[in-house]
């Protein structure tokens, strides 16, 4: 299947990733090559096969812990990793005009 630069630009926009024109061309070529390779999956008839989304075993049925309050990060710890913060918040560029 042919992958056009426009398709790559659309995907990159969905992924919030800015790509240079050069990279767009590169990834169009790579994507085309990889998708051609994975096409071989269509040789297999998977009618009635349950998709395997997760590895779960007997005795490993995603146990839930008690829903009890406990210690977590305080605000200062959580904010310490942020590139830009202020007044107890993560700061982002302005999204609402006055």
């Amino acid at each position, binding site marked *: 299947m042919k992958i056009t630069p426009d398709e790559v630009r659309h995907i990159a926009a969905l992924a919030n990733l*800015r790509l240079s024109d050069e990279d767009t061309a590169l990834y169009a070529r790579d994507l085309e090559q*990889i998708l051609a390779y*994975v096409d*071989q*999956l269509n040789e*297999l008839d998977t009618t009635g096969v349950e998709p395997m989304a*997760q590895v779960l075993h007997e005795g490993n049925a995603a146990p839930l812990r008690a829903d009890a309050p406990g210690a977590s990060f305080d605000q200062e710890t959580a904010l310490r990793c942020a590139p830009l913060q202020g007044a107890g918040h993560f700061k982002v*560029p*302005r999204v609402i005009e006055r």
Partner: protein
Amino acid sequence: MPSVGDLTAGNIRSGLLAGDFSATELAREALAKARAENDRTGVFLSFTEERALNAALRVDRSLAAGEPLGPLAGVPIAVKDVIMTKGERTTCASRALQDFVSPYDATAVQAIERSGAVVIGKTNCDEFAMGSSNENSAFFPVRNPADPTRVPGGSSGGSAAAVGGGYVPLSLGSDTGGSIRQPASFCGVVGVMPTYGRVSRYGLVAFASSLDHIGPFARTVRDTALLLGTIAGSDPMDSTAATAPVPDYSGGLTADVRGLRLGIPREYFGEGLEPEVGNLVQAGIDSLVGLGCEPVTISLPHTRYAIASYYLICTAEASSNLARYDGVRYSRRADRAALRDMYRDSRAESFGPEVKRRIILGTYVLSSGYYDAYYKKAQEVRALVAGDFSRAFEDVDAIITPVSPFPAFRLGEKTSDPLQMYLSDIYTITGSLAGIAGMSVPCGQTAAGLPVGLQILANHFHEQTMLNLGHAFELTRGDGPGQT
């Protein structure tokens, strides 16, 4: 005092108890050696000196006070830089997290430190654990300790080279499609991917959540068993961590493997396998047969579809997991006036080419109109690959294969063709998809002196069988540190 490169966890314990050296002396020696050579080897991304010396001092004080020592007391250990260590940097070898300081410890890190281990540093790897050669590190590559012109394998190349290069007896890595087993094979050390869920993933930076594992590296199978036993177990912080009881892997270790049935899958010994590697693996199988194991030729018919299934699933999961690096709560941020520009440019500046490639592929296969054709199809094929193994394990106790079709390759040799790099993961990816346990144990060297590993695969939660086979095999070789 003996060089840290000659010691196992077992003889560190006896050395400490005999007063031959202190934990502090050992930590200082390990740090000095690793630091002095790091410009050449590229193994470490950071050193955790203060943390290491504090941990070592605690061990020395316990020793002086006659208190019992933890199972890993005083053992220097290296941790892959995708695993959280509170108060230390965890970069994932990415510009996205270049300055990120972990706000908490991974459960596995808590476990090793509670057992007395001394974390000396964080190891280099492929960016976000995506790669098979360590060349995708955003900072610098790692050199193979057996030949510095060659790669150590990946993605846990630094953790494998830290043990192979004699800086530490133990290290932690992560394995998604072979990222522990393949570098273990390339660097001539033991490496284990435990059963999915056997070790908590809490604090492992997520790449592909249904495939990610934390696991151990060591020079001997005995040390590997010790470290695996320390980190395995359920965890309230990870609902996929298995609640099945953890056996005493070290106590249960035996070299008596008589009567075990070994599956030899014909699909793993065909086209693409370098003859020298094939011969070493075959010689390894012959030694196991000499110990009383029974070889059985088996078929895992869906093997050839595994790579396609894996690269669709892992990239889909990665594109979703890596959406969190938006420059807001953590990670690199581009200074832009508009929010959308800030997101897009932050991420463009953050990620290297392979990570971008995987985000694009993953986003594509999850996007509207393609989900069923790619992602769902890949999950169905994953079920078929897993079914191959379930059927095989009805008849055999373990499966023996090569780890990689070839030994360590030269830096730069395979970087131009991403698909060729993916194809080299064929023997490790199948076990990852099935969620079973796998291990690489050294089985010799090529004529050029490059290490080769033998892969032992065992059914879910049958790590003990796998470790026993590795231990028995190691003892037959008589040339390694497995003797002690």
